[in-house]
C-alpha cells in the first residue's frame, strides 16, 4: 500500500481549474478554452504516474487514502482504486478533454461552460475513487448539477424539459439509494463499501438488519431485499435498464453534443460501476434471487433499444438508443456472471465480467466519438441532424466519412476494432451461463448493424444533396481531435491485453466475493 495523495490531487485538480477559470477576468473566449483544455489534461499526467506505479497483477485496492472525518457517523474519507476504478478514471480523463476540444468555438458564455465541465470531471473522478458511501454519494450527486446546467443552458429547443426530466428521474433513483444506505447504516453503523461487503460475506449483514431494524411484518431477509431494491433502482435508472430509460434519449438529444459525449462516454458508466462496486459485493444473494427477471430485462434492453434506434429519424436519438443497447450488453454479462453461486465456472464468469468492464471502456470511447461526429455534422448543417436531411456527403468529405465509418464499425462490433473483444467476452461468458439470454441478445447485434449502416447510407452515399454542396471535410483541428480516439479503437481491438491485464485481477476478486 502506498500512501501518496495522487488520487486526491487527481480528483480536485479540475475543480481548482474551474475556480481559477471563473476567477479570471475578461471574456477572452480563446483563453478560457485553452486554459480549460490544458487543465483537463493535467489529470492524464496524474494517471500516467498512477499507471507507472499501479501493480496490475495485484488484487484489491491500491493508492488507498483513509482519514477519519466524522467518526460518530462512521464517515471516513476513504479512496482507492483497483483495475475497475483505474480504467474508469482513465476513461474520464480521456473523454472529458476530448469533449472539451470538440466543443464548438462559437459557444455562448464559454467560461461558464468550461468551468461546469471541469466541475463535472471532479464529480466523475470522485465517484470512481470514493469507497465510503458518504462522500461517494456527494460526488455521485454533485456530478448531476453541472450536467443539469449544461443541458438546461446550452441545449436544444426542448432543453428545459429534458434537463428537468434527467435531473428528477436520476434524483428519484438517488433518493431510494440514499434510503437504502441509511437503512444499512442504521443496522451496521458503517458506510464503508468494503466493510459492508465483508459483513455480507460473513452473513452478519442479515442478522444485523434483523436485530436493529423492523418494518411492518417483514422478515430480516425481506428487509434486506427491500433495501436491495432501493439501491437497485438507483443504479437501474442511471445505466439505464429498460423500463427506466426514458429520460436518456431526450437528455442526450437535447444536450449540446460535447455534453452528450461526456453523458454517454462516462456518466452512463457510473450506473454499471455502481452495480459492480456496490450491488455485486453487498447484495449478491438478493441479486441472484431476482436474476431471471433481471436477465430478461437486460435482453429486453438490448433488443428493444436496438429496434427503437432503428425507428428514429434523428441522428442523435439513434446514437442515444444505441448507447442504451450497448450498456444492455454490460448488464447482460453482469447478471449472467452472478447467476451461479457455485465456485465452478470461474472462467466463464471471468469472461463475462472482463467483457463487461472492457465494454464499459470501449463504449465510452466509441459512443463519445460518435456523438463528436454528429456534433461536427450539426456544426456544418446549422443544427440539422435528421436522418434524411443529408445524402452523398462522402463525395464531399471523404475523410469525414472514413473516420466516422471506422467509429460506426467499432460500434457495431467489427473484429479488429475495440467493440468486438468486449462483446465477444460478454457473449462467451453469458452463453455458458445463460445460453438463451445470450442467443436472444444476438438479435441486438444484427439490428445494430442494420440501423448503423442505414445511417451511413443515408448520410454519406447516393447523389450529393444540392443543399450541402459547400460541405467541408474535417479540418486539421477536427482530425487531430478524433484521431486519438480512433487510435484507441485500433489498439484495444488488436491488443486487448493492454487493458485486460488491469481488469482481470479485479474480476477474479469480484468472483471470489460472491461465492
Amino acid at each position, binding site marked *: 500500500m502506498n500512501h501518496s495523495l495522487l488520487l486526491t490531487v487527481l480528483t480536485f485538480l479540475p475543480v481548482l481549474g474551474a475556480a481559477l477559470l471563473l476567477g479570471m477576468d475578461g471574456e477572452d473566449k480563446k483563453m478560457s478554452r485553452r486554459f480549460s483544455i490544458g487543465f483537463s489534461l493535467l489529470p492524464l499526467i496524474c494517471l500516467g504516474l498512477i499507471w507507472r506505479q499501479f501493480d496490475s497483477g495485484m488484487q484489491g485496492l491500491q493508492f488507498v487514502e483513509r482519514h477519519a472525518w466524522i467518526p460518530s457517523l462512521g464517515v471516513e474519507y476513504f479512496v482507492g482504486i483497483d483495475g475497475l476504478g483505474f480504467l474508469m478514471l482513465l476513461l474520464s480523463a480521456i473523454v472529458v478533454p476530448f469533449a472539451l476540444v470538440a466543443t464548438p468555438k462559437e459557444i455562448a458564455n464559454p467560461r461558464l461552460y468550461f468551468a461546469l465541465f471541469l466541475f463535472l470531471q471532479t464529480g466523475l473522478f470522485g465517484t470512481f475513487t470514493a469507497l465510503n458511501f458518504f462522500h461517494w454519494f456527494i460526488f455521485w450527486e454533485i456530478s448531476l448539477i453541472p450536467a443539469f446546467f449544461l443541458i438546461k443552458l446550452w441545449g436544444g429547443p426542448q432543453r428545459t424539459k429534458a434537463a428537468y*426530466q434527467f435531473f*428528477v*428521474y436520476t434524483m428519484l433513483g438517488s433518493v431510494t439509494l440514499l434510503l437504502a444506505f441509511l437503512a444499512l447504516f442504521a443496522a451496521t453503523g458503517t458506510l464503508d463499501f468494503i466493510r459492508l461487503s465483508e459483513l455480507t460475506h460473513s452473513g452478519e449483514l442479515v442478522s444485523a438488519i434483523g436485530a436493529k431494524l423492523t418494518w411492518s411484518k417483514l422478515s430480516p431477509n425481506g428487509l434486506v431485499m427491500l433495501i436491495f431494491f432501493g439501491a437497485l433502482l438507483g443504479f437501474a435508472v442511471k445505466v439505464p435498464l*429498460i*423500463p427506466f*430509460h*426514458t*429520460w436518456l*434519449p431526450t437528455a442526450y438529444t437535447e444536450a449540446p453534443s460535447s455534453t452528450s459525449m461526456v453523458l454517454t462516454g462516462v456518466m452512463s458508466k457510473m450506473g454499471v460501476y455502481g452495480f459492480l462496486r456496490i450491488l455485486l459485493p453487498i447484495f449478491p444473494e438478493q441479486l441472484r434471487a431476482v436474476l431471471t427477471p433481471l436477465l430478461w430485462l437486460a435482453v429486453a434492453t438490448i*433488443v*428493444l*433499444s436496438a*429496434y*427503437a434506434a*432503428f*425507428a*428514429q429519424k434523428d441522428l442523435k436519438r439513434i446514437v442515444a438508443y444505441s448507447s442504451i443497447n450497448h450498456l444492455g450488453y454490460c448488464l447482460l454479462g453482469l447478471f449472467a456472471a452472478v447467476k451461479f453461486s457455485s465456485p465452478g465456472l*470461474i*472462467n*466463464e*464468469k*471471468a*469472461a463475462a465480467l*472482463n467483457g463487461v468492464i472492457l465494454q464499459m471502456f470501449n463504449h465510452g470511447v466509441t459512443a463519445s466519438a460518435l456523438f463528436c461526429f454528429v456534433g461536427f455534422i450539426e456544426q456544418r448543417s446549422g443544427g440539422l441532424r435528421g436522418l434524411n436531411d443529408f445524402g*452523398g456527403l*462522402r*463525395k464531399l468529405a471523404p475523410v469525414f466519412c472514413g473516420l466516422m465509418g471506422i467509429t460506426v*464499425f467499432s460500434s457495431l462490433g*467489427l*473484429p479488429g476494432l475495440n467493440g*468486438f*473483444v468486449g462483446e*465477444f*467476452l460478454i*457473449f462467451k461468458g453469458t*452463453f*455458458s451461463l445463460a*445460453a438463451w439470454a445470450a*442467443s436472444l441478445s*444476438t438479435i441486438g*447485434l*444484427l*439490428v445494430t*448493424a*442494420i440501423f448503423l*449502416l*442505414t445511417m451511413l*447510407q443515408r448520410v*454519406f*452515399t*447516393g*447523389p*450529393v444533396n444540392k443543399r450541402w454542396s459547400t460541405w467541408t471535410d474535417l479540418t486539421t483541428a477536427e482530425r487531430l481531435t478524433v484521431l486519438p480516439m480512433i487510435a484507441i479503437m485500433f489498439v484495444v481491438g488488436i*491488443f*486487448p*491485453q493492454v487493458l*485486460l491485464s488491469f481488469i*482481470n485481477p479485479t*474480476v*477474479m476478486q469480484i468472483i471470489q466475493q460472491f461465492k
Partner: protein
Amino acid sequence: MSWITKNLWLIPILPLLAAALISVCKQPRRRTAATLAIGSMVFSFLLSCCAFATTLHSEHGGFREVANFDWFSFGTTTLRLGWVLDPLTACMLVMVTFVGTLIFIYSIGYMAHDENFTRFFCFLALFAAAMLGILIANNLLLLFISWELVGLASYLLIGFWFHKPSAAAAAKKAFITTRIGDIGFFIGILWLYSSTGTLLFYDNGAGCLESSALTKLVTETTFAGMAVSTAIAILIFCGAIGKSGQVPLHVWLPDAMEGPTPVSALIHAATMVAAGVFLVARVYPLMEVTAPGLPSVSTALQVVTWIGAITAVFAALIAVAQNDIKRILAYSTVSQLGFMMMGLGMGGVAVGMFHLITHAFFKSLLFLGAGSIIHGCHEEQDIRHMGGLKKYMPLTFATYAIGMMALSGVPFFFSGFWSKDEILHSAFTWQVSKIPFYLAAFGALLTAFYMTRQICYAFFGSYRGHKHPHESPRVMTVPLVLLAIGAIVLGVFGTPAWPAFETYLSGHDAEFDVAKLLRGETLSVMLISICIVAVGIFAAWQLYGRKPVKTADQPDPLEAVNGNVYRWLANRLYIDEFYDATVIRLNAAFAYSADLLDRVLWGGAVRAASLVTLAFAHINRTIDDLFINFGFDESCHNIRRSSGFLSKLQDGQIQNYLRGIGVALATLVLFLIWGCR
C-alpha cells in the same frame, strides 16, 4: 517446424501492410498504389508456393504444422490464436494469391479512368489480407475475425461507386444478409467454445477438431436428442449459407454485382463466396462426426447436401431468364456454390474443394471476360444490346468460350467436367437419398443451357448496340489467357484415373490407373453427365443459336415457349419481393412497436407519474391555501388588528395616560373596599 510455417503470417500481413500504406498515401499516386498492392500479392503468391511445396512432402497421414500464440488472457485461461499449414490451406493459398494477382493486374486496365483508383487498390489489398487470414487461421475465432473483415471489404467494394443509390443499397444488403448467417455462426462459436474450452482447430490433440473434443461433443445431447456436435455444425454452417449465398440467404449476391467487375470476379465468384465452402471443409471433422455405432451420414452433412442441392437448381433456374451479363454469372455462381456444398456433403472434402478450385479459375475467367465485354461495349451490361462480339473481340471470345465450356462441363478437356463429374458420381452413390443426384443432374443441364444462351446472345448474331465495340487492352486480356489455361489444365489433377488432388489433401501419393476410368459406375455417371451437357447445349442452340435475335427489344425465345414461367424466372421467383413483404416489413414493424412502446408505455408511465406528482402538489397547495394558510393568515390578521389597537392606546398624550391611571386607581380603590368588606 519448417520456416514457412513459422512465417506463414507474412502471407496475409503483406497485403494488409500494402492496404495501410495506400490508405495513407495521397490520392494522385496511382502507380504507387498499384505497385504496392500487386507487389504484395506477388510476394504472397511466392510464399504460398513455398508453403504448397512444403505440403507436398508428406509422410503418412498428411502434412500439418501449427503455430499458436497468446492473444489475451482472462480468468485463469488464455485465448490462443494461431495459424495452420496443411494441404487444404496450401492449395487455397496458391489459388487465392494466383487468381488475386491476375485480377489485381486486370484492374489496372479496368479501373484506369476511375478517380478513386488508389482507394480501389487499398480495399482490394485489404480484402486479400482478410481472405488469406481465413485460410491460414488455426482458430475458429481468428477465422471469424477474418471472415467479418472480408465482409467489410466486400461491403466497401460493392459500394465502391457509392454515388449510385443502388450500389450503396446493395452494399448494405450484402453486409446485413451475411451478418444474419454470421449470427448463427457466432452462436456456434460460443457453443463450441463453452463445450470444448478451446477454439483452436489443432493443438497437439487438445484442439476442437481433434478426436477427444469430437468424442465429447458427439456424446453430449441437447434438445430433441440432437448431438451437440450436430447443433454446432449446423450453426457454423449458417455462416457458410450467408457468405456463400446459399438459399435462403442468396439474395445479396446478385445485387453485389453493383461493384466493379474485378471485384465481382475476385470476391463474388472466386474467393470470398467460396469461403463458406472452405469453412465447411475446414471444420469437416466436426461436420462428419457421428456417434459410434451409427455408421450413417451425419445430420449436419445431410443438411449441407440438401441446402446445396436446392440452391444449385434454384439459382440455375433463375439464371436462365436473366439479361444482365453479370447477373447471369452471379446466379451461376450461387448455383455452383450449391454444387460445391453438395460435393462436400456427399463426397467429402476433396470433391467439394476440387470444384471450388476449378470454379475459381473458370468463373473468374468468365467474370473478367464479362468485364472485358462491358469495357469494350462502353459500360453496356444487357446481353440483348450485345451480339456478334466474336468479330470485334476475338481474344475475349476465345477465352470466354473456354470458360463457358469449363462451367458447362464439356467433356474431357475442361476442368469443370471432371470436378462436376466427381460431384455427380458421389451423388449417384450417396446412401441416404437419390434425389440430390437428380437435382444435380438437372442443375448441370440448366448450367449448360444458360451458358450457351448467354454466349449466343453476346457473341453470335449481329451487333445490336449503339457504340462501336472494341477489344480490351493487353493488361486485361493477358490475365484472361492465363486463367483460361488454368481452366483447362487443372482438370488433369482430378480425373478418376489420377486423383492427384484428392490424394494430396489426404496425404497419400496418387497412382495413375486408367482402368479406374472404365469401371461400370464411373463410366455410366460420366456418360450420363456427357448426355446432360449435350442436351443442355443443344436445346439452347436450337432456341438461341440457329436464329439469333435481331433486335434488342425482341422477346426472348424462351418467353415464346412459356411466358408465365419465363416471367417468374426473370423476376427471380419473386424472392426479393417476398422478403420485402415479410422479413423487412416485420423488422420495420418491430422497430415501430419498440419506438411506440417507448413513447407510449414507458414514456407514458413516466408522464403519468409526473402528472400524479403534479396533481398531488396542486392538492397540497390548495389545502395550504384553504386551511393552513387561511388559519395562519387569520391569526396574523388578528395579531395585526390587536396590535393596532394596542398601539392606539399608546398615543403619547399625557392626559390620556393620566385619565387611564385615574380610572384604574378609582377601580382599584373600589375593588379594595369591596374586597375588605
